[in-house]
């Protein structure tokens, strides 16, 4: 009678190669958020400006007397700036608890005991936030450009404004990356998502208010680098080749944004780790 081997036999099924676990985090995170009806309502609301613009594009393309409604390249920049309003709310809604909730639940030590590098964990969390932010910035802008081209029946607008596609892409990603990294860093600092949300709102509004006060006193807009939103606006104007709004050199605004992202990465590097055991 054959005697079968009773010793340990390792799992023989297929496994994804290492380095893809962050995609699982993104997928699960996106699904979890999309289960919330109120959030879907916010997303739909964030697409209302797109609907209005789509009607405008249609009218401008089909009725010569409405041609003054035709979109210009700068309209895309203005729209992306306005979408910053929705980016703000989505960042707070989705981002505040991304790491804070894991820290509160002590889940980091479990996550980091799996085949998941810290960088992958952060990439996964960033991915969740960025998916939704891109859905209200880059996606509607590119779709609008596509509609404009289709309704016009020619590539004239795109060929006259060759910078438009890279400009939409760069400005969208600058907005998204700055907001995502800032929020994620703040989320890693606390176990309370509410506190994180307040902190993020505080940073956005406080820096804007501070700049307002400085401007009120000095009447000099070269201090706009103090403001988170003003820096984004300046970079947006740069990539869309529009006239600068503030006296701050664009390089300073860009540096300020890069500094925010850099500091956020340092904070994340220090805060996202297995729980230290001190009794």
């Amino acid at each position, binding site marked *: 009678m054959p005697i079968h081997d009773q010793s340990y036999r390792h799992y023989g099924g297929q496994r994804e190669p290492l380095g893809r676990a962050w995609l*699982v985090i993104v997928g699960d995170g996106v699904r979890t958020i999309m289960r919330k009806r109120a959030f879907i309502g916010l997303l739909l609301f964030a697409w209302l400006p797109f609907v209005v613009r789509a009607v405008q594009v249609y009218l401008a393309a089909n009725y010569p007397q409405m041609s003054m409604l035709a979109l210009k390249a700068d309209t895309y920049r203005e729209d992306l700036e306005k979408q910053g309003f929705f980016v703000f709310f989505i960042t707070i809604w989705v981002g505040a608890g991304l790491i804070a909730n894991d820290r509160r639940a*002590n889940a980091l030590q479990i996550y980091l005991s799996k085949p998941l590098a810290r960088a992958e964990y952060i990439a996964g969390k960033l991915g969740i936030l960025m998916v939704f932010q891109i859905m209200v910035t880059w996606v509607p802008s590119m779709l609008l450009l596509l509609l404009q081209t289709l309704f016009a029946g020619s590539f004239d607008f795109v060929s006259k404004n060759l910078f438009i596609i890279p400009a939409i892409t760069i400005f969208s990603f600058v907005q998204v990356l700055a907001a995502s990294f800032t929020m994620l860093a703040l989320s890693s600092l606390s176990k309370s998502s509410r506190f994180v949300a307040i902190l993020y709102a505080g940073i956005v509004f406080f820096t804007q208010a501070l700049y307002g006060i400085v401007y009120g006193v000095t009447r000099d807009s070269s201090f706009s680098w103090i403001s988170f939103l003003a820096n984004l606006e300046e970079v947006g104007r740069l990539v869309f080749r529009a006239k600068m709004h503030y006296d701050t050199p664009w390089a300073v605004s860009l540096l300020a944004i890069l500094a925010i992202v850099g500091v956020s990465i340092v904070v994340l590097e220090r805060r996202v780790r297995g729980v230290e055991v001190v009794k």
Partner: protein
Amino acid sequence: MSAPPEPNGSRAAVGPVLPGAADGEAEPALSGATVAAGPSAETSPPPEAAGALVASDHLSKWYGQVIGLNDVSVVVPHGITGLLGPNGAGKSTFMKLMTGQLKPSKGTVQVLGEPVWNNPAVFARLGFCPEQDAFYDRMTGREWVTALVRLNGYSEGQAAEAARRALETVDLLDAADRKIGGYSKGMRQRVKLAQALAHDPELLVLDEPLGGMDPIARRKTIRLVREWARQGRSVIVSSHILHEIESMTQNILLINNGRILAEGNVHQIRELIDEHPHTVQILAENPRALARQFLAFDDLLSLKFEEDAVVAQTARPDAFYRRLTELAASGEAGEVREVTSPDDNLQAVFQYLVK
């Protein structure tokens, strides 16, 4: 930031310090783990490390000025190994170092023949069950385990099946679709255990896995650990209760103040420990009925009540736990919800050992 302090004491002090060791009456070659004695300029693991489960070489971890683990050189063989020490001894630190969650301040640690820090490939071969609760109360047990298994590279279907098997193994399948927030302490322990073993790891690292479990769940978990090892896999389990460790393995590492104090067969220290009263806190539906049953135990030293719990001191923990399990199973004194043991008694033994 100030530089971390150098570890105090000499490395030569590490090693068996059981009574008799100093006067040449030391136990014969201790089985199981091998503690390296004496300083070494090399940072590579000792030769015994080849094929070892875990091999640490002059491994230290500081938390600022606090030493979590102090110059530990040890080789842990395959099979079940118990890590025994009082709270704050360094058990959790050692476990977090061997599961790659903490970066060593000094020295190296290899698990399954590979360096573990920053090496996710090794993590796929490990299963870690932390001491603290570590989950979202709003998720069901099944959702939580499935989500974690997916991080090991399983597809959704495979992960769901692996999670189901793991939950079945820890006897939690009936409650798998309930929110973790509604789980008892013992169920929470078991769902943590399920996530640790769901991806079929070669090594299970269990940090105080029996804490808070009711007697029946304890017995099942102990059986599970032994069965797991019987299938050729390895387990490192920590506890501050000798009785728990002894029920799973004879091979132990004694750790105290961040250092490996002794290692080898559990029987070598059990007599010492039995000399000290063992305290057990039992959370029960009817503590007074339970206390009445305890009064018939001849090894009972004292009894007191704390809200919904009864705290007993016994001279023979083995017998006490056995009878407590029988009592819980019979239901004569109502439901026994949770059993915990403070480590004062073990601390006393450690103090005695290091004299």
